[in-house]
């Protein structure tokens, strides 16, 4: 009888050209689920302490979710795991698209790659038969070309591809791994790990059945959820969203957010629904985090309002098993033609290439998005590097001599596009910036580090901790730092975990904004709950936007029980999340990474505070928040190291 997972993993040694199938005992799934949890279990035990992230001992894992393919919804996420070349510690990245079920259709919950090939290769798995093939003809090709060539080459209709582009080949530490022509597992620099192994792509063509224990119950739960997902709210035109944000920004109090509202925004516009609203609310950093909403007001940001992106949408894009469809396939704007279509730029991309660098040209954002997708480069980090370079230029640290004549001023669209291309090519100044802003600052010196806005070397996403300190906290305490998809005070509200896990605190319905900045134990408990839940739902392969719908509506615990035949309580599942998070932290400790080193740049913490705009005067007591969080997790509050007792309690001491 099925249990939702496949029960097997594949190990590929590219150095020796060998394959090894391993059966994973049921107990491992009960302790770690699949996905990132299974990945953490394998990597913690098998990557040696001194392994070079770009060397043969690093293991790169492609893992699927436990619930992927079981008839559940929103569960099409795949994850890539490995030792990160950015932090030297735990690395993972999470992506939608179509690859997640393809891993399971080949008969595996995870495919793990070790060793280094002498020449470029790709891995092809045809109905359970793995094969390493030459990729000389693909090296240098972009991700879209690579995918098209490979699907034609293997000649099978149900083929899925994950590949790197030129950025990964050139070992850019901000390179990601793409599937479905531009949906990228972008963070942690794992595209460079794939490039270091000379592995251009994995190509999966399988048709294995994925069998849940109780399919009828899976369907019943999914149908019920779908009725909620398909409820649509009426919305005003796109540019009006900015003024809704202005109103929210000006109010002294705030109401607990219900994810149903955000779900409807995603359904209509995608993540771009927040393009303007976020700036006005103070959620989106402006001008490399030194500006404010007053520098990029509604009249300027109107050029990137949600309708601009929706109008180019030819067809909605749904990842596997998603009933919502926040993505879109768009036409390219005329000025930047040459590509037939592009994935609709996401919020993060619009803001890093928009407000963060003061660029108001939406056409160029479409183009930059496609360039990055094809290069296989993380847009968040690339935008962070560009913003850093512009501020260095503004302060005379970089000059036209350094930039090959580029006038790197705020909002200079042509220079921004030219610099992005240089980063992809690793040409001139682009070579310096292609590993993210922190490494660039270390090479440049001259105190330029203060302009590199990052945590643990990873450029910060477009959510400002001075507006929601929960973001600043999760940027700092996660084993893979600088990530916006795990927790925040806002996320805790939308997850609605207290409705299922009775010991968790219910937030006040209306609260004064000042209270957000008071670091206390209750907030630490809430933040820890976000991390545990996030690890749990990553193990299941669930999308964050599904989780936003709220635990009382999204039947994650019920799905897991129906898929596996287990009878676990929400509390027991939260403990699995706690175990995965603690193991990821233990991975960092094992590899000599100091958790305190992930504290974000001073500017992003409001040190000094902004003197204008919606976040004026706001700062974050990050040291106390980090210590409180570690303590809430049963980790040492001084060092962030999981205590012996905690390791023992979670069964991690074997």
């Amino acid at each position, binding site marked *: 009888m099925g249990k939702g997972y496949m029960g097997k993993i594949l190990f590929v040694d590219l150095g020796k050209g060998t394959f090894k199938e391993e059966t994973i005992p049921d107990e491992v799934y009960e302790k770690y689920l699949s996905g990132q949890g299974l990945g953490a279990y394998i990597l913690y035990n098998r990557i040696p302490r001194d392994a070079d992230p770009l060397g043969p001992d690093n293991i790169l894992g492609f893992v699927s979710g436990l619930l992927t393919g079981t008839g559940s919804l929103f569960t099409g996420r795949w994850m890539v795991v490995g030792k990160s070349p950015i932090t030297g510690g735990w690395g993972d990245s999470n992506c939608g698209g179509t690859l997640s079920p393809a891993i399971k259709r080949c008969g595996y919950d995870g495919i793990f790659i070790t060793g280094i090939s002498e020449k470029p290769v790709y891995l092809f798995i045809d109905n359970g038969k793995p094969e390493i093939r030459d990729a000389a003809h693909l090296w240098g090709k972009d991700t879209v070309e690579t995918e098209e060539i490979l699907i034609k080459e293997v000649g099978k209709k149900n083929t899925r591809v994950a590949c790197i582009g030129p950025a990964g080949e050139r070992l850019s530490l901000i390179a990601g791994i793409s599937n479905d022509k531009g949906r990228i597992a972008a963070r942690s620099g794992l595209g460079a790990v794939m490039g270091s192994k000379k592995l251009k792509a994995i190509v999966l063509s399988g048709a294995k059945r994925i069998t849940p224990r109780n399919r009828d119950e899976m369907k019943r739960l999914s149908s019920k959820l779908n009725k909620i997902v398909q409820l649509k709210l009426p919305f005003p035109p796109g540019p009006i969203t900015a003024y809704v944000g202005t109103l929210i920004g000006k109010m002294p109090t705030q109401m607990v957010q219900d994810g149903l509202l955000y779900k409807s925004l995603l359904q209509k516009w995608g993540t771009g629904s927040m393009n303007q609203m976020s700036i006005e609310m103070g959620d989106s950093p402006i001008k490399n985090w030194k500006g404010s909403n007053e520098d990029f007001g509604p009249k300027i940001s109107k050029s990137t309002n949600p309708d601009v992106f929706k109008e180019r949408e030819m*067809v909605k894009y749904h990842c596997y098993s998603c009933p919502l469809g926040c993505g879109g396939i768009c036409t390219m704007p005329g000025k930047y033609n040459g590509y037939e279509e592009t994935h609709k730029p996401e919020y993060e991309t619009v803001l890093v290439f928009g407000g963060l660098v003061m660029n108001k040209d939406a056409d160029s954002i479409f183009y930059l998005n496609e360039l990055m997708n094809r290069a296989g480069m993380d847009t968040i980090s690339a935008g962070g590097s560009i913003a850093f370079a512009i501020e260095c230029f503004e302060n005379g640290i970089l000059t036209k001599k350094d930039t090959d004549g580029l006038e790197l001023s705020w909002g200079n669209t042509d220079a921004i596009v030219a610099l992005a291309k240089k980063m992809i090519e690793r040409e001139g100044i682009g070579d310096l910036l292609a590993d993210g802003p922190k490494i660039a600052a270390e090479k440049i010196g001259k105190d330029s580090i203060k302009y590199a806005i990052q945590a643990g070397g990873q450029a910060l996403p477009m959510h400002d901790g001075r507006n929601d300190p929960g973001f600043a906290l999760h940027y700092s305490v996660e084993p893979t730092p600088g990530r916006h998809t795990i927790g925040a005070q806002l996320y805790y509200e939308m997850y609605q975990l207290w409705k299922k896990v009775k010991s968790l605190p219910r937030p006040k319905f209306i609260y004064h904004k000042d209270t957000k900045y008071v670091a206390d134990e209750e907030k630490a408990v809430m933040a820890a709950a976000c991390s545990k839940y996030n690890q749990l739902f990553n193990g299941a392969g669930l999308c964050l936007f599904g989780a936003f719908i709220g635990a009382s509506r999204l039947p994650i615990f019920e799905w897991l029980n129906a898929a596996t035949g287990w009878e676990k309580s929400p509390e027991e599942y939260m403990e699995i999340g706690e175990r995965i998070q603690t193991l990821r932290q233990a991975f960092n400790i094992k590899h000599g990474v100091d958790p305190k080193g992930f504290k974000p740049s001073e500017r992003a913490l409001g040190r000094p505070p902004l003197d204008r705009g919606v976040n004026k005067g706001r700062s974050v007591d990050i040291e106390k928040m980090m210590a409180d969080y570690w303590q809430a997790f049963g980790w040492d509050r001084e060092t962030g190291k999981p205590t012996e007792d905690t390791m023992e309690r979670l069964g991690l001491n074997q």
Partner: protein
Amino acid sequence: MPYTITDACSGCTACVRKCPVGAITGERKKVHKIDPDLCIECGVCGRICPVSGAILDQLGKPCTFVKPALWSKPVININDCMSCNICIDACPVGCISLSKGAGAGDNHGYPYLSDEKACIGCSFCAIECPVDAITMTAPKG
């Protein structure tokens, strides 16, 4: 339990050619064999086999030949469909595709049977659809 082939097999190779996962091997005019690790229980071998009792299904029951023109095909009700792509992924022969957008204010793509000839009538698309928007329907005739 996978499908199995009995000694009644005539070795005509019809099943080898139809099996979507390459699970069946055997020389012409000799008894064939199904690799139990590869079989996905789609049943096409049983439907295409002209010899009564040569192929047993997952419950050990003998399969019956059905003319390919009479195999059930998926009929997709797009009013219930949520464009989630699950059916496309479930299809072992890749005969379902996503349309380019329904138009008239609805820019969702919907699945459709893009290669009717390739469809083996396995019904995996209907089984896996979480909202039961697919019905397997036998052609009239």
